[in-house]
């Protein structure tokens, strides 16, 4: 039935296939000599994490493999990853905690009381989640928030909001810019960067329940106090103080080119600000808006390390917990990691040792700030709250802020259900 040529061909195939099987089988079943802790971190933090983690690993006799991923995919891929390639430790933002904990992807940590005492309560709270009892799911390592950056050649550090408004509009007139403040929005809006203005007008996102935990049914996007102050947004829109057409690149560009005097931004822009020749800046807290009785505060972001459920399956659970819950919470490691990318360390002892004046200033501007809600329902909020600002600050044709924010509140409530 088969001729010689075909038989030869089949023989050749069999030989190649056999060779492959011989190569493959030991690779898939060989046990690991030393445990390896796999860490997922984003591009900005990979070098710092690698350095700090290797110091720890050498003292324990294990190895560390730091995998570089984008911030978003760290969170997304954790849901679908297979155990073989799964991380033991992830570096992430505190507002993921609700989602990753609800998914059962991360495990609770129990650092010693002495260690916990070295952290501000809100940083630990930010990494805690639970409907009935809150558990700590991550070790905070760095704090992140926006502050008011003033171009001191163009204007003075404002003494009040009205002062900032006056100076910003004067600079706008002088430079011919289309906007007074460099606050980023864009067509999709940016509730994060608008939060100092939002909180200054007495807006908040979620209230708290009797147990002190965030309550997704108590939405404060259009609370009565805020609505009373919302008219100011319409004034700001009319005078061109803020504009929804200003997106992240435009807001930065305007500030770096000296077209606006005030920039609402975070430490991620420090290196570009320092690189700009002739630009002199001062970083301060946001001035309060007179007459509202509320403070203008930024959202607080906390970055931290979390131990995944996969660590136990990989036989490195105790190592991962030692690294995250013990080693990385100590001042020295915190200082090394946070300083490597211009962030303020979460550990308060490390915080006192920060030398950089700008990083220190961002730390000072965080006082009184509100941690970004870490409950999964927050995913319903960003778009609506950002869009409410966009609708009311797009210049001519804008909708009165009161109507716009009432609409956002309704829509958020409907989505959370």
């Amino acid at each position: 039935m088969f001729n010689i040529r075909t038989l030869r061909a089949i023989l050749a195939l069999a030989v190649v296939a056999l060779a492959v099987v011989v190569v493959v089988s030991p690779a898939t079943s060989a046990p690991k000599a030393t445990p390896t802790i796999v860490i997922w971190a984003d591009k900005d933090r990979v070098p710092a994490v690698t350095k700090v983690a290797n110091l720890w690993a050498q003292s324990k006799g294990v190895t560390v493999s730091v995998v570089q991923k984008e911030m978003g995919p760290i969170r997304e891929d954790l849901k679908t990853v297979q155990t073989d390639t799964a991380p033991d430790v992830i570096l992430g933002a505190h507002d993921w905690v609700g989602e990753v904990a609800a998914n059962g992807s991360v495990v609770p940590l129990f650092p010693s009381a002495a260690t916990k005492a070295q952290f501000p309560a809100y940083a630990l709270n930010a990494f805690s989640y639970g409907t009935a009892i809150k558990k700590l799911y991550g070790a905070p390592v760095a704090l992140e928030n926006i502050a008011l950056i003033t171009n001191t050649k163009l204007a003075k550090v404002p003494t009040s909001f009205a002062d900032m408004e006056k100076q910003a509009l004067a600079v706008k007139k002088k430079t011919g810019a289309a906007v007074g403040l460099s606050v980023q929005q864009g067509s999709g809006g940016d509730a994060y960067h608008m939060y100092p203005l939002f909180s200054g007008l007495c807006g908040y996102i979620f209230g708290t329940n009797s147990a002190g935990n965030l309550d997704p049914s108590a939405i404060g996007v259009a609370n009565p106090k805020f609505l009373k102050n919302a008219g100011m947004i319409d004034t700001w829109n009319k005078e061109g103080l803020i504009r929804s057409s200003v997106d992240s690149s435009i807001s930065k560009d305007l500030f770096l080119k000296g077209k606006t005097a005030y920039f609402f931004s975070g430490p991620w822009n420090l290196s570009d600000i320092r690189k700009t020749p002739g630009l002199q800046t001062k970083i301060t807290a946001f001035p309060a808006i007179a007459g509202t009785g509320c403070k203008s505060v930024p959202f607080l972001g906390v970055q931290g390390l979390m131990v995944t459920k996969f660590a136990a399956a990989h036989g490195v659970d105790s190592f991962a917990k030692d690294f995250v819950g013990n080693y990385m919470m100590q001042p020295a490691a915190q200082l090394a990691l946070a300083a490597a990318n211009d962030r303020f360390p979460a550990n308060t002892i490390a915080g006192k040792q920060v030398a950089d004046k700008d990083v220190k200033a961002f730390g000072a501007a965080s006082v009184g700030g509100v941690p970004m809600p870490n409950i999964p329902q927050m995913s319903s909020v960003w778009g609506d709250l950002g869009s409410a600002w966009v609708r009311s600050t797009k210049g001519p044709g804008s909708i009165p802020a009161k109507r716009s924010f009432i609409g956002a509140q309704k829509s958020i409530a409907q989505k959370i259900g």
Partner: protein
Amino acid sequence: MTTATAANDTGPAGVPPASWLARALGFFSGTVGLVIKIGFLAVTNSLAIYAVVVLLTDGHWISGGLVAVATLLIDVVYLGPWHQAVPLKFLVPGTIFLIGFQVVPLLSNANISFTNWSTGHNLTHQEAIAAIEENSLTPPADGATYTMTPARQGGDLVLLLVDEVTSKAYAGSKDGLTPLPPADVTIENGTVTAAKGYETVKGAELLRLDEEMGKLLIPTTGSSFIRAEGLSQAIELQPTLRYVPARDVFVNVETKTVYRDNGEGSYVSPDGEALEPGWRTYIGAQNFKKIATDPLVRDPFVRVFIWTFVYAGLSVFLTFALGLFLAIVLNKPDLRLQRLQRALLVIPFAIPAYLSVLVWGGLLNDDFGAINNLLGVHIPWLFDPTWAKISCILVNLWLGFPYFFLVCTGALQAIPGELTEAARVDGATSRQVFRKITLPLLLVATAPLLIASFAFNFNNFNNIYLLTGGGPLQADQAVAGSTDILISYTYKLAFQAGKGSDYGLASAVSIIIFFIIATISAISFWRTKSLENLT
């Protein structure tokens, strides 16, 4: 310029094609061809065997088996002596790829649409039970924390503990805590380094201790126990929830509240409190029911559906009209720099769409965009619901017309000149020639492409998402903004509404979109056939 020169090089070749084709065929049907064939098959088989080994070790029996069967089928078809199998050589790989890349994803999508896979429902039932138990562990009010040193006592693992408050030393085994007399232990920096009768675990053994240490629970009072936390600490923990396997319920240790399986992947108390995490399970047609009944999904559906049709329809019509117009204009044989002009028109096609859309987003900016600045107007391109829709279509026109320009240029050249000439001789005007001769002949060639283009734009997530993000979101709109098409609306519904991500719901909507597009395409192809019959 380089493009134009390159186009010039591809003129009629000097060598008669038949001769080298014949030679190539002769060359490849001999030994060389056989060697190449065996080479390709060997590579395919090696990859397949690798895949099967990996799949079977991971316990994926069905997919592993399917890969094996498919590979064997390919081997038999290509190596078999039978000549009737020649068509199969083309059909079998094609069918396998069709199944692998079209049918399997569709079935898996359909499968997911009947589950509750979403944030909070990501684990298997067993994993969820373990995670709930783990999450329920809480340090008791008077619970102690210890420094910890793993040790062995006659082979059994023991944790040598020092209370961090009282500094008393203990040995903890699976039978409980034993106080160690101070004379028998050496404590350095608050940690036991040696103890009489115990051998501390050191070196390489420490590296393999994880699983054993994780299983060691040292019982204390009641249901509390001490467990290692990391490598140098231990902590007393108490479960607040207890799993009862016989009844498949969780019971709160303190309040005795019972949490029952609600059939939708959660343990729920009588007053509606659900334990997190839940698990993935089949929930019947719940997701489809939600699409039909949930006002959040149902209300914007019609609005989004209509806009999706308008967007896809206008995109196809305008890109085709502009492409055809330019193709006819540039088809004049006596046109100067014809090749250069054609090359220039194809540029939008050559720039990656992602990039162009983002650049267009910047150009169309209200206050800072080049377009408003150049025109000296203040059109809210991206901030007004109607203008945003126009922007979406205009940007899509820019991205899409070169495709139809190319297609129409080709198709026009394929229409025999005698036909149009004959019509002219019969006294037809240019318009009549175009309407009665050119356009129908052109449509026969391009109709399938128009249908494909419609289907593509119907699901053109990238353009919408990158240009407007589906916005602007009006005050009375909950999920879908003014320019959201079905697929971007699905994305928002699945990932930005409610509580995190909802893959089940997203799959259900995708299935519906699939049926819509399949129906439209089927009808269109059927109509095209009648068009072909006409000519």
